[in-house]
């Protein structure tokens, strides 16, 4: 006789009282495939944990965002934010779709060049650019976004010494009505610092002011803040034309559009509360189109959107290592990935789905990672089916920041796989090994002898 499907026995107290319409949702629906490829076979072939990126989803996201902006405004250019995910395969998908590169360090700059991005299509942001990097960027005709007066004066000096005329923009920070105000980057609009920097650049014979840049924050939930930012950049653009008869070629509104992840502490899930890209596009383009520029003077609109274009293209597959009960009776499930791989677990209540079918019973549990550290919590409270050792899970929307901010801590970083348009699988970053990790380590001669041998 065939045996019946087993499920671990549980008993749960039934609580009476008012229904809570904001009660936690049960993640019950199994996700057995990623883009038609079975999770089980992916883990069998490439190990667990495993990051999986859907090329199709990246392209869908990019094409959707460009359509939304280009149907509202005539001149739009996206620049892929390298820090969001700088796996070369991911960057190349964006570049194939037409995206420029937006980088914030010398190593990211070189990565973009290595990916074949022409220097003139690289935007160099950030407060940390060495003299050598500034000279290289100027020689490559890149767009250098100046962050502070020290950098501005360095660049003027370097340009004079090396007979260069780099194309530059300034990063402008401003009050857009949101908190916290990101005033640590760039020049302030309200106190006149931005205008002083503009004047200094225009009076310099060695810098060519071609754009204005701002990046008002991250995971922004208010399209109205972008309207304020666009208004202030338009005001500067207009004043530059009026005072100096100089046409600013582009306005770069940076990144910051949210993905549909749920921020920790949020009352409702991100999928219900996050504004759509259409709403951001409306807010931005209405301001620029309505500002009064002549059609030929309309600036190119650059967007450095990262998270919103990649987050839902990334999945993390993992396995249950153990199931136990805490001293207060709560269920604790220990997974083979933790905050070292899934860095964004610090910010989000990630959606986690079982990767196989279960019975109808569920229980509330804590999802812990495998690290021997108390901070290693993937979800503080989630209602899931009765998980057991060896079961697989899928974490959703992990494409942004995890593959760049992950930590090599206690465990080695896993394989990253890309599923292409035809559902073929490609390892785009091999799992780390001890040899890889120790490649740059050096042990002094006198410490090489181990008496315990």
């Amino acid at each position, binding site marked *: 006789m065939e*045996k*019946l*499907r*087993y*499920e*671990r*026995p*549980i*008993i*749960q*107290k*039934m609580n009476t009282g008012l229904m809570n319409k904001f009660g936690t949702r049960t993640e019950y629906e199994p996700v057995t495939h990623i883009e038609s490829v079975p999770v089980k076979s992916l883990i069998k072939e490439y190990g667990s944990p495993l990051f999986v990126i859907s090329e199709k989803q990246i392209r869908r996201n990019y094409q959707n965002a460009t359509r939304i902006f280009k149907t509202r405004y005539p001149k739009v250019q996206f620049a892929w934010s390298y820090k969001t995910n700088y796996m070369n395969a991911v960057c190349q998908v964006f570049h194939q779709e037409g995206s420029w590169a937006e980088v914030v360090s010398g190593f990211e700059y070189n990565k973009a060049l290595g990916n074949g991005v022409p220097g003139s299509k690289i935007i160099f942001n950030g407060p940390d650019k060495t003299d050598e990097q500034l000279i290289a960027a100027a020689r490559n005709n890149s767009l250098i976004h100046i962050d502070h007066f020290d950098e501005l004066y360095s660049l003027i000096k370097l340009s004079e010494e090396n007979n260069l005329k780099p194309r530059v923009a300034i990063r402008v920070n401003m009050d857009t009505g949101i908190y916290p105000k990101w005033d640590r980057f760039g020049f302030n609009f309200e106190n006149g610092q931005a205008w002083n920097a503009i004047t200094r650049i225009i009076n310099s014979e060695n810098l060519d002011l071609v754009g204005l840049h701002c990046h008002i924050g991250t995971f922004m939930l208010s399209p109205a803040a972008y309207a304020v930012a666009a208004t202030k950049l338009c005001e500067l653009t207009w004043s530059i034309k009026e005072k100096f008869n100089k046409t600013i070629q582009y306005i770069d509104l940076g990144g910051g559009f949210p993905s549909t992840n749920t921020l920790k502490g949020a009352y409702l899930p991100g999928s219900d509360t996050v504004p759509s890209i259409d709403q951001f596009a409306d807010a931005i383009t209405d301001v620029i189109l309505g500002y009064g520029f002549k059609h030929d003077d309309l600036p190119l609109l650059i967007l450095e959107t990262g998270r919103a274009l990649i987050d839902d293209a990334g999945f993390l597959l993992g396995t249950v290592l153990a199931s136990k*009960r805490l001293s207060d*009776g709560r269920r604790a499930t220990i997974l083979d990935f933790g905050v070292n791989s899934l860095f964004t677990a610090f910010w989000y209540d990630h959606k986690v789905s079982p990767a196989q079918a279960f*019975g109808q*019973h569920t229980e509330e549990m804590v999802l812990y990672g495998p690290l021997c550290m108390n901070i290693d919590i993937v979800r503080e409270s989630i209602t899931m089916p*009765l998980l*057991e050792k060896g079961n697989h899970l899928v974490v959703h929307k992990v494409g942004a920041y995890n593959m760049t901010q992950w930590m090599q801590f206690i465990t080695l970083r896993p394989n990253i796989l890309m599923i292409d348009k035809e559902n073929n699988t490609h390892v785009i970053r091999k799992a780390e090994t001890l040899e890889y990790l120790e490649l740059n380590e050096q042990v002094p001669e006198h410490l090489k002898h181990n008496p315990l041998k």
Partner: protein
Amino acid sequence: MKLKKNIATSAEGFIFNPGTGDSFSTNPIGAEILSLLKEEKTIAEIIDVISAKYDVDQSQFEKDLDDFKSQLEDSNILD
């Protein structure tokens, strides 16, 4: 492991403790274990019955039964 005498259980997995007024629900395997407990089966007998009927390793079930026992203790329905 013995259920308190006054605990009411149903085959569908509904449990009622008239002493405290608490109600509980359990899954089908839980209900089956409770009914075996009502018949005063020993732990060894319960392990034999369940592992013969369900697709589970005996050692896995022993571990889960131990966990279930502590849940029953927490629920205050064991003698």
